[in-house]
């Protein structure tokens, strides 16, 4: 699939992002089974030849759309995470960046139907496995960062659980953005969660 996938590392123009979002709307209104590649071409404002040139099947298109969403976030968040060697500033920076990226999408009205796309993927065994791998990739990278910094923790054995706690917060924030939570309140949520991390850092750390 990846060899045919035209969406590399989340590099998409805003026009293509909007086009992808329109295609997901087609899936929602007409159904994954009923929607044709031609429907996707119309929705995205391209031609059937263009769509068929890039995607052999609807499943392939669906996987590419999922990959786009995850890659866009992962690439950005990974680079922010890598900028900080200590766990507290790293997690704080990633949370803030996540809020900004999520708010950006909310304000632009793109990726509003992303959860429907994930639910569609959940009904197809191959897409479901693809989705699981994508989510796992993000979580594992986060766990790796916590493991790298485990010496900063009172109990290094808690590294994975803390990473999973922050994964929960990311998921929660993502939904609260869609529910229209204010920018200030989103930052308060992030700061609350940072208190949890501070509780688990060795005494003498500056946080």
């Amino acid at each position, binding site marked *: 699939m990846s060899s045919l996938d035209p969406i590399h590392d989340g590099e998409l123009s805003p026009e293509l992002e909007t086009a992808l979002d329109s295609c997901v709307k087609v899936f929602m209104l007409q159904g994954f089974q009923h929607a044709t590649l031609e429907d996707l071409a119309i929705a995205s404002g391209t031609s059937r030849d263009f769509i068929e040139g890039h995607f052999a099947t609807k499943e392939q298109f669906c996987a590419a759309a999922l990959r786009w969403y995850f890659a866009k976030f992962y690439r950005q968040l990974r680079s922010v995470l890598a900028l900080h060697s200590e766990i507290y500033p790293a997690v704080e920076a990633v949370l803030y960046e996540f809020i900004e990226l999520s708010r950006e999408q909310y304000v632009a009205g793109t990726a509003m139907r992303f959860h429907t796309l994930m639910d569609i993927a959940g009904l197809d065994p191959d897409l479901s496995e693809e989705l699981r791998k994508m989510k796992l990739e993000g979580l594992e990278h986060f766990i790796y960062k916590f493991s790298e910094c485990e010496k900063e923790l009172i109990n290094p054995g808690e590294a994975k659980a803390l990473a999973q706690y922050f994964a929960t917060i990311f998921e929660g924030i993502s939904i609260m953005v869609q529910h229209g939570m204010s920018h200030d309140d989103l930052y308060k*949520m992030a700061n609350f969660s940072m208190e949890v991390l501070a509780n688990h850092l060795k005494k003498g750390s500056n946080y």
Partner: protein
Amino acid sequence: MDAEKLSPEVENIFDTCVRVFLLKGYETSTMEDIAEACSISPEALKGYYATKHDLTFAALRWYYLKFSRHVRDEMAMHSDLYAAMEAVLFAFIEICSDQIHANKGLFLRTFVDISYVDDEVKKEFEALEADWQGQMLNKFRQCQSELKNPEDVEILAYYVRTVIEGFYEMVKFNTPDEVMYKLARVSLEVLESRMKTAPPPEQKRFFDRP
């Protein structure tokens, strides 16, 4: 609608209709498609809900009430805030987990997405959302004297809500139950640090219970 008193057949209809919407489309699917997927006759389905729109409303309300009723019951059973929120998080994990184990989908987000293209569903969704958040906020207000700073009630209610939304996705991602209970324990540290009196150690040990 009383979410507790629904027959398994109706619950199955609600779960199945979302799958049909996803595969055949919210606009293009018919009551006949849904009936066929539920293995019942179209007449039997229409005996429950006259139109697809009625069914969508009922299914959306069922999803909300299924969770909010349990959450409300748990909050009512505990007079102190910490124990109430602990019970809420545990109950939420249990309900989500039961859904997964029963091979039912956690499709609430799809309903939310449908609300973007259906104004009436959107209004209903917003009303249910406000009710859900209001219940949580009321409990915090009732117990605000337990907090070091009673002005924190609103933002703490939002925090618990954020955690709950995160839990929904983590269970959906097949996070094991024992990990979820640990996450509940960690999440509540935010509340614990804001309580005038720390929860008793035996209450905190409750977290380790699967």
